[in-house]
């Protein structure tokens, strides 16, 4: 080696340590970025599961109820009128008073009555309705506790100490006595999955929202899948290369990136104000979401069609099939798995979407579980949004639990899409 080259080698050698350090640092940044992302996922899930797991169990209090005909005001058990008017809240109160005999004074009594949810009377009414023989008898019944009691009772064993909230000292004493007698316990919260929304956190459930979401998704699927596939078929197989099809393509790509809230404005101005579709119903929600997911479905369907090798088409044409026959009989069935995957992903997107639905009145407070696509309904994400705004502490737990259910749905759908792709994927 000659001299100058030695000098430059020397120069390089001097900077080498620094360069390696910078290499290491750069690598570290990358690892840190990944770890940050993973940490975010972990925090999100831990936070939500930590807050929400409690909502799957609800506090119940055991009451010994006396179905006295006089107190209820029922003389004839078969008279539905009397049953409907009967004073069940009176016997609930009475049973509470007999359980805690030392309670006196109006304000103390009022505190006592607040231990149980006001759904207790409906529970008793239902029991009597289904079993007429109970009249005049007494029995022990587990009824829902009030949401404040529920929050307090659940927090008793937590590390940060009990969350007192709105429960008074007296109420805490009573709860202690109930615990000692084994008359208060946590049970699996069936109510949460079956009932609709309610102002009372202990009675509120996501049943109505889930049904609403299903109806909405059904409309979305029925509209967007056929239209999306048809559009993709046209663009991939039949479209001549001209201005119009170019314009369509640009439009589709842009629509895929338009903020979802704009679709809400579209739904409000065109569907509701112009076509007079009723608001707050799954029909309009499904329409808006269908318009929103259409670009996603078209793009993935086109990719699926593109993946079908041209040899299949040529073979079809070669034995005398028309282009339409080739598409309908060969290309479409082969591209179907890919299209379905795209559709499931689009549906998952639609299921999690909230913003456009706020514009078209799906934020209404709806207690009943919807029975059809034209019944007022709300959907799961909107329900989460509504509950997140509620001041009651017990709703925090409910919201997190609803999020867990929503995430479970989404994860199932996305896994299904991945499995479907793996299963049916074909390499040519």
């Amino acid at each position, binding site marked *: 080696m000659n001299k100058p080259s030695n000098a430059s080698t020397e120069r390089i050698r001097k900077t080498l340590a620094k*360069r390696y350090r910078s*290499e290491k640092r*750069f*690598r570290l940044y*990358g*690892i840190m*970025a*990944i770890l*940050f*992302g*993973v940490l*975010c*996922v972990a925090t*999100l899930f831990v*936070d*939500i599961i930590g*807050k929400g797991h409690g909502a799957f169990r609800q506090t119940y209090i055991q009451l010994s109820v006396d179905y006295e005909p006089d107190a209820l005001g029922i003389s004839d058990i078969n008279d539905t009128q009397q049953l409907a008017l009967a004073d069940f809240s009176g016997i609930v109160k009475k049973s509470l008073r007999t359980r805690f005999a030392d309670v006196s004074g109006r304000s103390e009594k009022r505190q006592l009555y607040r231990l149980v949810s006001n759904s207790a009377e409906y529970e008793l009414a239902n029991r009597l309705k289904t079993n007429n023989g109970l009249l005049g008898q007494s029995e022990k019944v587990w009824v829902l506790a009030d949401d404040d009691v529920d929050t307090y009772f659940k927090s008793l064993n937590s590390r940060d100490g009990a969350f007192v909230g709105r429960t008074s000292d007296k109420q805490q004493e009573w709860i202690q006595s109930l615990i000692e007698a084994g008359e208060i316990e946590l049970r699996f919260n069936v109510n949460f999955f079956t009932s609709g929304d309610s102002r009372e956190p202990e009675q509120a459930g996501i049943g109505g929202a889930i049904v609403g979401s299903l109806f909405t998704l059904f409309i979305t699927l029925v509209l967007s899948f056929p*239209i*999306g596939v*048809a*559009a993709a078929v*046209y663009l991939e197989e039949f*479209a001549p290369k001209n201005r*119009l099809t170019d*314009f*369509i393509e*640009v*439009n589709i790509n*842009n*629509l895929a*990136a*338009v*903020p979802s*809230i*704009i679709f*809400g404005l*579209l739904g*409000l101005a*065109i569907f509701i*104000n112009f076509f007079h579709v009723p608001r707050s119903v799954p029909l309009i929600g499904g329409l808006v979401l269908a*318009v929103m997911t259409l670009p996603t479905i078209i793009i993935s369907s086109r990719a699926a069609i593109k993946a079908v090798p041209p040899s299949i088409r040529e073979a079809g044409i070669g034995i005398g099939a*028309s282009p*339409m026959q080739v598409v309908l009989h060969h290309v479409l069935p082969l591209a179907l798995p890919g299209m379905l995957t795209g559709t499931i992903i689009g549906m998952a997107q639609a299921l*999690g*979407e*909230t*913003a456009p639905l*706020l*514009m078209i009145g799906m*934020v209404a407070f709806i207690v009943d579980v919807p029975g059809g696509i034209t019944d007022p309904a709300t959907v799961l*994400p909107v329900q*989460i*949004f509504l509950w*997140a705004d509620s001041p009651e502490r017990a709703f*925090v737990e409910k*919201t997190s639990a609803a*999020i867990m259910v*929503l995430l479970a749905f*989404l*994860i199932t759908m996305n896994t299904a899409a991945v499995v479907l792709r793996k299963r049916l994927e074909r390499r040519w």
Partner: protein
Amino acid sequence: MSTLAYVFGRRRSQQFARQLGGVRNLHSLPSYYGMRVALWCGLPSVLLLFLCLALEETIISNMLLAAIPDEIRPNSVAEYNLLMNKIENLASGALPTEGVTPALLDASTALMYLRDTSQRLMTGLALLVAGGGGFWGWWRMSAQLRARQQVEKVLKTCLLLCASLAIFTTLGILLSVVFESLRFFQQVPVSEFLFGLEWSPQTAIRADQAGGSGSFGAVPLFLGTLLISLIAMTVAVPAGLMSAIYLAEYASSKVRSLAKPTLEILAGVPTVVYGYFAALTVAPLIRDTGTSMGLAVTSESALAAGLVMGIMIIPFISSLADDVINAVPQTLRDGSLALGATHSETIKQVIIPAALPGIVGGVLLAVSRAIGETMIVVMAAGLAAKLTVNPLDTVTTVTVQIVTLLVGDQEFDSAKTLSAFALGLMLFLVTLALNFVALRVVKKYREQYE
């Protein structure tokens, strides 16, 4: 009926075939003949039905108006709407019939009668057209008929219609926001909307009402949107880009197959969940940290919303950047390494410059997402339109205002409701421009290496 038509058409074509000695003497397969008759039967009547349904309301209300006696004849549009509503409610039984003027009562019975008649008329007409069309299709059939071509033409037109739905959607969006915005700009000048510094959309209903000045200067909203997007991008761009680089260049395939789906979970989480996370976990955390350091942090700070939005956008940037980096030809990498550059030098000086257009496109797309993101800011950012760039203060964004203005009751004649559409127009135009540029850049870049 169409099914019936299909069966008849098919049978007739088979008859032809029998006369000619086999199906192969027909021009098309028998099922195409059947389908052609079915289309003749179904299409015209369905089209007619749609036309009738569209025109029905106008015709009925006009006939009703003509029949109304002069004493209750409306003078203005508002009065007309009121009257029509009244008659409607009477007819559907929502209003009690006692104490109503007989003229109105007559009108409501007339309305019911007209509705009933039009329903019958429509059904009859549709059936007639279906029958006629079906018969025409059936009658005009012959062995030489190019049935397949005709059916395929109809199908193809349907496909084209479905494809052009994308244009109609864009058009619909444009029309809906532009029309309402124009009505808004009649009440509020464009210059005030674009450059005004104060936003308080509450308009007074009565003149003496307090606090209802109604000013529509959107600058605080734009600033708030920009601030939150900026915070989001400062989180998302470094994190997303670095993770993409690491995944594409350094990570072993095992790490890659684990880390990539984990990051993509972030993309699948609904925005309402992020909003909840921001409002109930991140915002209190930031507030408490800030207070312990002696800073005044509002509970609805721009920082919380921006931070969480950034987390949401990380997977978006990382997957786009990942694609782009993978598309850089291997020869560039090999060349640089062969010259003695370290891996990171190769990345910084060769790969990133080569991938830059694609990365810029991806970042632009991410910005447009951040601007249009709604739920996080609705739940975690505030409503107060402050003109501030302090990330610890509360700001509001364009999307938050659209949602708050349009949730609940809407009156489409007040500037308050209409202003939401003007904001929507701005949002649409800005994101459209961003997307357009970004898609162009990405596409051009892809072509470069293909």
